[in-house]
């Protein structure tokens, strides 16, 4: 059923939807060209045979060292037909801008803000493109693979651990 959905998308957008494949466990997946995302999503939502009406889960993956570097992933699902597909969009590091789908699904709002915050992917046409978790003064995007695991950037200088009150317990453990 989900494969038929991908097929239908491919027939409608032969040049924007490419490389359909069957993922692990029978997931139906296809790649979508970056600048056509909104158009494809709009059709996927409005077409009665597809009816992907539930707002999708959007996340990104950073494949550092490959091109395109980022992989933006849309998990579409439908409450009408109960089927799911996954659309993957390659986003190059040089131009990390993708059309926003907030005007298609209102529920895409925070997921896109999350992708901006954590991966630095910009969404054109997003109504409120702030960071989601981190503060606006934060520099960089923490889920990028080149962001250090222990990278800290406090707003006020941190005291060294020895000075801070550690509570009762064995001293000098740090």
């Amino acid at each position, binding site marked *: 059923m989900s494969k038929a959905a991908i097929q239908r998308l491919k027939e409608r957008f032969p040049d924007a939807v490419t490389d359909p494949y069957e993922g*692990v*466990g029978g997931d139906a997946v296809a790649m979508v060209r970056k600048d056509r995302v909104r158009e494809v999503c709009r059709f996927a939502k409005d077409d009665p045979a597809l009816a992907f009406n539930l*707002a999708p*889960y959007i996340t990104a993956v950073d494949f550092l060292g490959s091109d395109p570097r980022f992989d933006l*992933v849309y998990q579409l699902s439908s*409450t009408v037909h109960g089927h799911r597909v996954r659309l993957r969009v390659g986003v190059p590091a040089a131009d990390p801008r993708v059309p926003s789908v907030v005007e298609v699904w*209102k529920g895409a709002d925070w997921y896109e803000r999350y992708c901006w915050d954590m991966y630095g992917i910009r969404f054109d046409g997003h109504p409120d493109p702030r960071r989601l*978790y981190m503060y606006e003064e934060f520099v960089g995007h923490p889920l990028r693979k080149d*962001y250090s695991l222990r990278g800290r950037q406090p707003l006020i200088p941190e005291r060294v651990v020895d000075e801070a009150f550690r509570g009762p317990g064995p001293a000098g453990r740090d």
Partner: protein
Amino acid sequence: MSKETEQILQNPAPPADALDAPFPSKRMHVNLGPSHPAMHGTVRAVVELDGENIDSMKLDIGFLHRGFEKSCENVTWTQVFPYTDRLNYVSSIMNNVGYSLAVEKLCRLEVPERAKYLRVLTSELHRMSDHLTLVGAMGLELGAMTVLIYCMEARDILWDRLTEIAGARLTSNYARIGGVARDMPDGWQDKVERTLVRVAGLRDEVDKLLTRNRIVMDRLVATGRISRADAIDYGFTGPCLRAAGEPYDIRKASPYLVYDRLDFDVPVGSNGDNFDRYLMRLEELKQSERIVRQCFEQIPPGDIVVEDYRYVMPPKPQVYGTIEGAMAHFKIVMEGIQVPAGEAYSCTEAANGELGFYLVSDGGGRPYKIGVRAPGWNMLMALPAMLQGELLADLIPTFDTINMIGGEVEQ
């Protein structure tokens, strides 16, 4: 003496229509949270008030952000389980199960029947505890402290049973890749059945106290409404979506584990208001009880983990007695489970809706990417739209009934 005081002293009588004069309504910004008893978790809401009505509202989240995904990318697949406990900390086994199903999808593993039943059983007990927490907290914040006490008692005896099987009260860490950690202890089924009776009694007490209570109905009926179309558009799932009238439940739409063999109903509301969302929870408590009882009837004897030592720790006699066992143990502890390269998305129906895990593996011992679709995310996102023009007082029950859990939303 100032000029105004002089004037007042000279004309002591107030104007005749002083009582009817409109209050000067001043626009006001109220900053709720991040640390406020009614803002569960640490959500900051900046509410712009026009009199008592909410004119606009902005949410600011991230105060509880602990870098779940970044942490998970730097530990082995097995070490992720304790982190998932801390996503929705009220129903941690559901997160464990959701994550292990996603990893098993990548590994093409089929878990033994008994493990499937144990997963469903403990998940449903945790679903009950999640709903009880919501009802109790909502009661408390509407001024019904008794309800909180009843719900906490019910939740605590459920957690006692879960402690007996999982070993921990809150952060259960129960599921494993390929099965579950422990089998039922002796006499556990009896204890759970007695607990279910007690919980049902407390649930009925709460039902009597709240459902036809005039004060509660005034606060809940027709407040925090969302239409069916909007709920879908915002990506609501779980009880909040069903309260708006959309009969969508992943346990029915694409059954996982053994849900296709269990007989249970999915309650569906019609108004999408706070009252319906509360009723969904009460009804699901009854359905979860049915599921648990059926699991006890159907559960077969057998293994609780797969016997594939690439994924599961061998039993201790084998580790200490055979070279193969020692090697398998060493490989899992030092290198982690080797999950085949690829990507997979797996979703389960958690207490508040669709809990999805998007996993990417590069074939190594550590996850390349773990994405969590937390159910509360969409509900919290829609809160400003749901409360547009409503009273400030309605924010509190609405925030309760969407049951946003800080741990999973803010990761």
